[in-house]
Structure formats: C-alpha cells, structure tokens
C-alpha cells in the first residue's frame, strides 16, 4: 500500500510496473490518471490546497476499505497539490489484483472517493484574480449536511 500526497509530478508507467513487479500472482493492473482540464477560457492555472495529515490518513483509510471489499494485491494512490496548469497530471490510482473485475472496481471506488471526499480545494487563477472552485454538486453543498463519514 502506497499513498503519496506530493507537489512533484509522478510517472504512471513506473507506478504500474511497481504494482506488478516481483508478484507473479498479479494478472491485472487497473489504473487511472487524472489530468487538469482547460475547461474555462479565463483560467490559466490552478493551485490545489489540501489538509496535510488528514489527506494522507483519509486516503489510507479508504485504501483499507477497498481491501476489505475486494481481493487486492497492491494499491497505489498519488495526489498532487500546489500550482498546476492544464494538461498536468493531478492524481493517480493503481490497483493490482488476480481478478480484473476487482482491480477495476477498487480503482473506480478510490478515484470516486478522491474526487468527491478527499480534503482538497482548487483555487483558479483567472484574469480577474484567484477564484475558489465551488463543489460541483451544489445542491448537495447547499443542503447543509455536514460531512459525517466513517470509512
């Protein structure tokens, strides 16, 4: 189990190779790479802020949850923070398993959680200055439900 929350870029190929290396029982490695999209014309870059300590702990807890749910041989999660521009890699999830269905399910489970529950916040750089990105599911956000989550 490997969790990295880091400023630096990462190498998806090296991470995938590491998940299979020296483990002849591993038949399947499913992975996901998230990239910064150039969604809005006036956004030239973004800065990703996170909650050091909590981020790593919550990701580790979700990895444990994934291992409880599926038979996994290896899990790697990398999430970057700091300043990023469109096209930059932002997040990696890789899962190794004997079974490809388990590898896919766990990989999607982890990236879904990272995208919606991991303590990261995006500050967009616009021509008019910094702008905090609002959560997509604004109805959810406005519903006033404070997060209660027991991973």
């Amino acid at each position: 189990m490997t969790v990295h929350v880091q400023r630096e870029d990462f190498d998806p190929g090296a991470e995938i190779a590491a998940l299979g290396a020296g483990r002849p029982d591993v038949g399947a490695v499913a992975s996901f790479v998230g990239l910064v999209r150039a969604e809005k014309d006036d956004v030239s870059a973004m800065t990703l802020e996170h909650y050091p300590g909590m981020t790593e702990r919550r990701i580790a807890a979700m990895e444990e949850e994934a291992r409880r749910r599926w038979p996994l041989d290896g899990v790697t999660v990398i999430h970057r923070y700091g300043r990023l521009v469109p096209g930059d890699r932002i997040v990696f999830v890789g899962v190794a398993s004997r079974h490809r269905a388990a590898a896919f399910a766990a990989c999607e489970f982890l990236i879904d959680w990272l995208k919606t529950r991991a303590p990261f916040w995006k500050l967009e750089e616009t021509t008019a200055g910094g702008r905090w990105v609002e959560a997509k599911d604004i109805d959810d956000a406005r519903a006033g439900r404070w997060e209660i989550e027991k991973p």
Partner: protein
Amino acid sequence: MKILYFAWLRSRIGVGEEELSPPPAVGTVGQLVDWLKTLSPGHAAAFAETALVRAAVNQDYAGLDHPLHPGDEVAFFPPVTGG
C-alpha cells in the same frame, strides 16, 4: 484547542491556524462555530453560511453535534473540490 481554516474560510479569517481556548460551554462543533462567529468580523463572514462549511475533528469528518475535548484539532473548510 487547535483550529484550522482552509480555502476561502482561511481567506476571510486571515489566518490558516489559531490556538484558542473556548469557554467550557462549548462542547460540540456547532457550539464552537457559534462562539467563533463572535470573535471578529472575519470569523462572522467565514461562518455566515454554515450550509457551505464542513468540519473535521482530529482529521476525520465530523458533524455539528460532534463532541469536542481540550486538545482536539478542529478544521473548517468548504465542500471539497479535489481530483
């Protein structure tokens, strides 16, 4: 008690972290929010719309009714926008 603020809550309050000693009557996250609002106009602005604020106690997500103890680390932030 260590209080952390992230994203626009930090911008409005002006600091990312402060060490505070709430009065004994503050026993839950919700009561802490009510007390923090009284500290400064920045705090009041940050917590004006509590529906847009999330909290964590000791680095785990927590609701308004979550109990607090001296020495807890409490964080406030907007809904997350990661990945």
